[in-house]
């Protein structure tokens, strides 16, 4: 059924369709509507799940961990400081190999207190062992939640679906809600081999000394690497079922492009609009949208940008003392490879500062005149 939904409600409907059995969450702007809607669905009996009110985000994820360990499909949603508060348990989730899915509304970290879009919340959790997806529109949000359970339950690692604060969370767009029967067929019920079971008691998260710890880390890394194939297969499956196509990256007019703009989330669509305008001026610019931060599709990105003249990377985040985080990832991924292009890193749109095509076009002009790719980063829209 095609209807009009905000990004937040797209998350709620996605979780409902995925048949989540336990939801534990704590409200925070701009995520609140996600959990309000889910609690309403549970109260009305539309969703047969246990909705747990908890006293913090730390407890929310702890409750999901317990539920997931029993083999239940668990879901939570948060944003910004709420995600930061989950930090310890983010590590726990992945190292316990629990396929929990969460939605994170990308919002700036304070102070200055700021509820607007910025990716530093989820990127600060880069190394916690969660798969991370960045969505460009509300259709992708609902579809990604459904796909995430299938992927996570295969590779036994959790997934975080990220959507831009307000720009998606509070913006209404047409969304095709998949049919429930078809989703059931696409996403079979979850039945882990090892689960918390009172009839077969075991100790979970037990001591693992130096004689076995490294092997557990090896297994997580291997699963992350294998996840690339699982993600691609699941996306192909999804296309067969629902007709919509996704991947780890999305290429826009890259084939004949001399120059490439790399961006994530909604900013990538704005970059595509900018690329169209630049193309009408006679220059061949394409856009590469990175959809997955973890596992990081470095090979695929290298394959798409090798031999190009220049690459501009737009980051709505910053690793202080270094550079934009996606820029750093791409640079690490192509370092030392033949025909790697010159890379220019730009930081813009922090804390909800609006990013328009004009801004991106100005950055493009900037690299032609004054920028040096040896410099690790530039500011794209700062008042100096």
């Amino acid at each position: 059924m095609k209807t009009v939904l905000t990004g937040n409600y797209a998350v709620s409907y996605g979780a409902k369709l995925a048949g989540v059995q336990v939801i534990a969450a704590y409200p925070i702007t701009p995520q609140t509507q996600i959990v309000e809607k889910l609690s309403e669905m549970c109260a009305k009996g539309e969703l047969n799940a246990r909705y747990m009110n908890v006293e913090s985000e730390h407890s929310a994820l702890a409750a999901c961990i317990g539920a997931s360990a029993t083999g239940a499909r668990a879901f939570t949603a948060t944003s910004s400081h709420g995600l930061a508060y989950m930090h310890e348990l983010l590590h726990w989730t992945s190292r316990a190999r629990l396929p929990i899915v969460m939605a994170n509304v990308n919002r700036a970290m304070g102070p200055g207190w700021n509820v607007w879009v910025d990716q530093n919340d989820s990127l600060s959790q880069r190394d916690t062992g969660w798969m991370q997806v960045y969505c460009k529109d509300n259709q992708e949000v609902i579809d990604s939640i459904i796909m995430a359970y299938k992927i996570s339950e295969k590779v036994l690692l959790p997934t975080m679906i990220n959507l831009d604060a307000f720009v998606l969370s509070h913006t209404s767009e047409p969304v095709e809600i998949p049919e429930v029967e078809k989703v059931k067929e696409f996403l079979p019920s979850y039945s882990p081999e090892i689960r918390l079971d009172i009839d077969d008691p075991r100790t979970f998260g037990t001591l693992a000394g130096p004689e076995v710890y490294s092997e557990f880390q090896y297994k997580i890394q291997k699963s992350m690497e294998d996840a690339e194939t699982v993600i691609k297969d699941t996306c192909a499956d999804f296309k067969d079922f629902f007709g919509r196509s996704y991947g780890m990256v999305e290429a826009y007019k890259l084939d004949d492009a001399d120059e490439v703009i790399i961006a994530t989330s909604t900013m990538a669509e704005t970059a595509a609009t900018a690329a169209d305008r630049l193309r009408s001026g006679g220059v061949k610019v394409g856009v590469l949208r990175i959809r997955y931060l973890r596992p990081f599709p470095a090979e695929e990105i290298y394959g798409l940008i090798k031999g190009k003249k220049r690459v501009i990377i737009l980051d709505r985040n910053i690793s202080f003392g270094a550079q934009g985080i996606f820029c750093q990832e791409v640079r690490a991924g192509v370092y030392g490879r033949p025909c790697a292009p010159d890379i220019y890193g730009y930081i813009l749109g922090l804390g909800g500062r609006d990013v328009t095509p004009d801004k991106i076009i100005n950055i493009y002009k900037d690299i032609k005149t004054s920028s040096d790719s040896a410099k690790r980063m530039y500011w794209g829209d700062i008042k100096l």
Partner: protein
Amino acid sequence: MEIRFHGRGGQGIVVGSSILGRAYFYSGNQVQFFPEFGVERRGAPLQAFLRVSGTKIKEHYNIYEPDHIILFDSALLKSVNVTEGLKDGGWILINSRKAPGEFAFVKNCRVATIDADGISLENKLGNAASPIINAAVAGAFARLVGILPFDSVAKAIAESVPAKIEENIISAKTAYEKVMMGVIM
């Protein structure tokens, strides 16, 4: 087509943008609508935005050069530059008892007025201190651009308003019929 709504917190411009947005969606368009991002403050000047297009909307930023403006509260003309960025020849629809000719703008725009307060109160929507006018304003706008069938507006109202659906539809229908359109200034 891009439309910017001006009102004050609590006047219902967010629901107003939802009614019009859904109405355009039901009549076969791609739409995108969103409130001014941030914290809600009752009484403070507030904006909402609506994009309508035949193809997928890729614009994920604010509207700076709207085709049309909808003004829920004419008092805002004193404090807010409501026509900022308005494209040449665009409509500005004002909730007011006055005739379009009684408003003057420097911009090259078309003015329409509708007594949405009066129509809403006749249909017992809200009270004199705070009439609920979003359906009436949406109904009036549907007539201006001329590509929006009223059936779509009625369907959108049923989905967007929490109560008194029938009264809201009547209110919108009345406004659709009574809207006063001025000439190009």
